[in-house]
């Protein structure tokens, strides 16, 4: 089906868009942002803020760009005097009761009211004769505070809860300038996706308790990433301040998570800031471990692999990148290997109105990626193999006491590629410091086989390296080698050699919204039916 295109002129720029497109979206195509508050592409449009009024040739009145569909030959002016004056008028009215407490407001620096007022608002107020409206801060739920004084009644939060989460616990109460966002006394804003109202709020009216007064927006470094919380693979931004992760926020991807992420994912970041990290390679020398350099450590790793008689077991975290999982697997290609990935589980929590978007029961991001490179998800099967294994590689898995018991009773040599060194793994032969997903580049494959890149958001501690780097070096062997991957993109290319499903794509190809991996799936990479990836 071919879409019918309509050509319009917006501020002198011609743009062709599908019939039915709104002016505000058509303007985006032309690179023009029509200022707006109530409009949001993932919510129904009520056209109430009246900020996006634009001049449309032949129309007697200014038209709301968010709900007015383009028409062939239409001439739209966003920058006309009339439109600017209307916006200035809206801004003046939005400010009369706004506290202007930007110095203590978390939204400052990323506030749409601040931005547009700076851009085209009046220099001063004409409302100085009156006291501003005041209402105390309200506690809406586990992570959300409502600051009514800052509210501009755009109703995005109400519409999100009503139309997207389909759990209308917020309302507009009262009328006129007494109106405020209300909540039922019998309910809390504790929906598993409730935190999105904080992102949706264009001002600092709905704020996160977790982020409260933590950092100024302009001090944050923002890195495109993928949520490591479950197999949905929501696109996110990792916000860091001075190399510390301070919050995760959703990054739009209409195919995966639209503009949203769940609260579980949002709050699941503190592990990225742990201070008790392994910072140098450690080799066991009798009863204790000695820090060493990477050359020594990699030599030792090579010796252990070459010296392995019998089979090997990989116990991996599902948070490892596809590159790390794949290359660690490849590193043992000459040995019979049982590779398993750890998949914690929890309750599924869908976002009602968005098809195929949920906090998934499988609470780790790369189950599919692991499967594609020959990992099974039957953890116990992996543990049982330990009894007869010659080598076990722990790839940052979180080990329970029972896991540790299995390892202790195993005759295998133990290599830990980890971020944290558990006390109970004191018998590890080799401990190699690796990076978390926030400290490296890599990719995850979500449950719909979409492979998505994430970027390094903070520096690695000490000598830690991505696990794919460690494995890549081990595969290349000692000495300077051109074949060892220096980047995640190169590591990814190495996957393609071994598992054809990856061969057709590249990092450039994936961009920042990912790409769905096509069949033939794992033809030569492993048997699809095998839950345990014994090859």
């Amino acid at each position, binding site marked *: 089906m071919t879409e019918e295109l309509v050509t319009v002129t917006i501020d002198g720029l011609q743009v062709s868009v599908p019939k039915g497109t709104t002016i505000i979206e058509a303007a985006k195509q032309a690179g023009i942002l029509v200022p707006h508050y109530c409009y949001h592409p993932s919510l129904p449009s009520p056209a109430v803020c009246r900020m996006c009024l634009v001049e449309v040739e032949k129309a007697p009145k200014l038209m709301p760009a968010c709900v007015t569909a383009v028409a062939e030959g239409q001439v739209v002016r966003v920058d006309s005097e009339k439109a600017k004056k*209307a916006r200035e*008028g809206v801004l003046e009215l939005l400010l*009369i*009761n706004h506290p202007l407490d930007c110095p203590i407001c978390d939204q400052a620096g990323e506030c749409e009211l601040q931005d547009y007022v700076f851009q085209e608002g009046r220099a001063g107020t004409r409302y100085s*004769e009156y006291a501003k409206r005041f209402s105390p801060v309200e506690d809406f739920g586990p992570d959300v505070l409502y600051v009514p004084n800052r509210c501009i009644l755009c109703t995005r939060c109400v519409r999100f809860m009503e139309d997207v989460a389909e759990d209308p616990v917020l309302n507009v109460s009262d009328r*006129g300038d*007494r109106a405020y966002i209300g909540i039922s006394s019998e309910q809390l804003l504790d929906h598993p996706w409730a935190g999105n109202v904080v992102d949706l709020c264009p001002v600092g009216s709905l704020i996160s308790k977790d982020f409260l007064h933590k950092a100024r927006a302009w001090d944050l470094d923002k890195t495109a990433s993928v949520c490591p919380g479950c197999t949905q693979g929501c696109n996110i931004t990792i916000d860091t301040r001075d190399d510390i992760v301070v919050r995760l926020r959703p990054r739009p991807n209409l195919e995966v998570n639209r503009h949203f992420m769940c609260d579980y994912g949002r709050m699941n970041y503190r592990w990225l800031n742990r201070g008790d990290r392994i910072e140098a390679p450690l080799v066991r020398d009798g009863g204790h471990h000695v820090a060493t350099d990477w050359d020594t450590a990699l030599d030792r790793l090579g010796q252990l692999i070459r010296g392995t008689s019998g089979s090997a077991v990989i116990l991996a975290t599902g948070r490892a990148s596809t590159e790390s999982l794949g290359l660690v697997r490849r590193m043992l290609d000459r040995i019979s290997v049982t590779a398993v990935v750890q998949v914690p589980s929890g309750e599924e929590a869908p976002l009602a109105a968005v098809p195929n978007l949920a906090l998934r029961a499988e609470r780790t991001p790369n189950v599919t990626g692991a499967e594609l490179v020959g990992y099974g998800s039957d953890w116990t099967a992996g543990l049982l193999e330990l009894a007869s294994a010659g080598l076990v590689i722990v790839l940052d898995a979180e080990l329970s006491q029972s896991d540790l018991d299995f390892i202790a009773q195993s005759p295998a040599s133990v290599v830990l590629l980890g971020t944290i060194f558990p006390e109970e793994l004191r018998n590890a032969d080799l401990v190699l410091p690796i990076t978390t997903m926030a400290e490296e580049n890599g990719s995850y494959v979500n449950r719909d086989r979409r492979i998505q890149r994430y970027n390094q958001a903070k520096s690695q501690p000490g000598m830690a390296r991505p696990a794919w780097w460690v494995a890549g070096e081990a595969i290349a062997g000692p000495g300077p080698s051109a074949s060892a991957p220096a980047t995640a993109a190169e590591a990814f290319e190495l996957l393609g050699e071994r598992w054809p499903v990856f061969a057709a794509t590249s990092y450039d190809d994936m961009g920042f919204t990912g790409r769905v991996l096509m069949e033939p799936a794992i033809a030569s990479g492993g048997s699809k039916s095998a839950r345990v990836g014994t090859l």
Partner: protein
Amino acid sequence: MGYPHPSHPKENPVLSKHFGDPEARTYDGWVKRGGYEGLKKILRLTPEAVIEEIKTSGLRGRGGAGFPTGLKWSLMPKADGRPHYLVCNADESEPGTFKDREIMRWTPHGLLEGCAIAAYAIGAERCYIYIRGEFTDPYKIMDQAVEEATARGALGDNAFGSGKRIEVILHRGAGAYICGEETAMLNSIEGKRGNPRIKPPYPAQAGLFGMPTTINNVETLAVVPHVVMRGGEWYKGLSLSNPKSTGTKLISVCGHIQRPGNYEVTMGTPMKELIYDMCGGMRPGRTLKAVIPGGSSVPIMSAAEAEDCLLDYEGVVAKGSMLGSAGMIVMDDTTDMVYQIWRLARFYAHESCAQCTQCREGTAWTTRILERILAGKGKQEHFQLLLDLSDNMTGKTICVLSDSCAAPIVSGIQKFRHEFEAYIQGAREPALAAV
């Protein structure tokens, strides 16, 4: 008869003929006065023929906007299997207007008959009459009339044996002026806040419960049986001035006038005759200062403009205002215009639904400025500020509530600036405590 005064010879009582006659409220009484003949007549015609008759009459919506009724009905889609709805707007809340209340109080069956005819014409089986919550008496009277008309077979599953189902349901409002706006009314019936909707879609495309819907004012529907019985041509002939303003019009007159009440005049009657002859003029020793001719939402007219104005849609526009709902607020020389304009602004600030920024904040701010002027704290800059805000509140929002707040402010400053100046310059004692 007329109520509360007997009809004046200069009136042309069509709708108001039986006002004040309690017997006309009953089914039998209404039938005795020729009632329900119109409905029986049209049930033998096609809906298209009914719409044609209304088009011929030139009848325009009596709620305020003056949209041609026949044309409105013809915009409804043809029968397509979906339910169609008729909504009767009985939310009369426009300050100065009290005509629909009298229609419901005295001629409930006339309204029901009009509803039934309209429902038939637009292919609706259900009509909701939205009666404002404060109208307790009209509600009771209408409720009884619906019960009677249904029991007697005029309404119900088989209206007058025609096989047509025409059901009338009363829906009680609960105190919100804005529900008189037709799309806000639809939301209110659906059990929502009475927020006006964005148009398009228009109600004829997607109205009540998303279905094709026509919304008509009480007076409009009450006229319909008369048009049907006496013919569109007859109605069209009732016009003293502009051929686009036909029929009779109930004018609610209130304020500083000897005999306030509803007066039914032929379109084009001079306002001067209404004020000085029919209503008995000003109170002794008083002179006319201003008239708000179409309910509080229209620009204020000076005495000179009012005395030279013809009462029809075009005549009032020619004098810088609008006929609106034809609620005439008459003000004599004792009126403090600033105070009354403030009182109107406060009304709109109270009634704003809170959706659009300009309305939510603008109505409240203008009210405060007027309060300050009345408190003796006014400044010259306030004139420009009021005019700027009014401009910002005009033509920018989903509905016209904020425009309605701005209209009396702008016209008030234009025509009665000296009264504002008196407060600002301290020549007049403050009327309010400082804010």
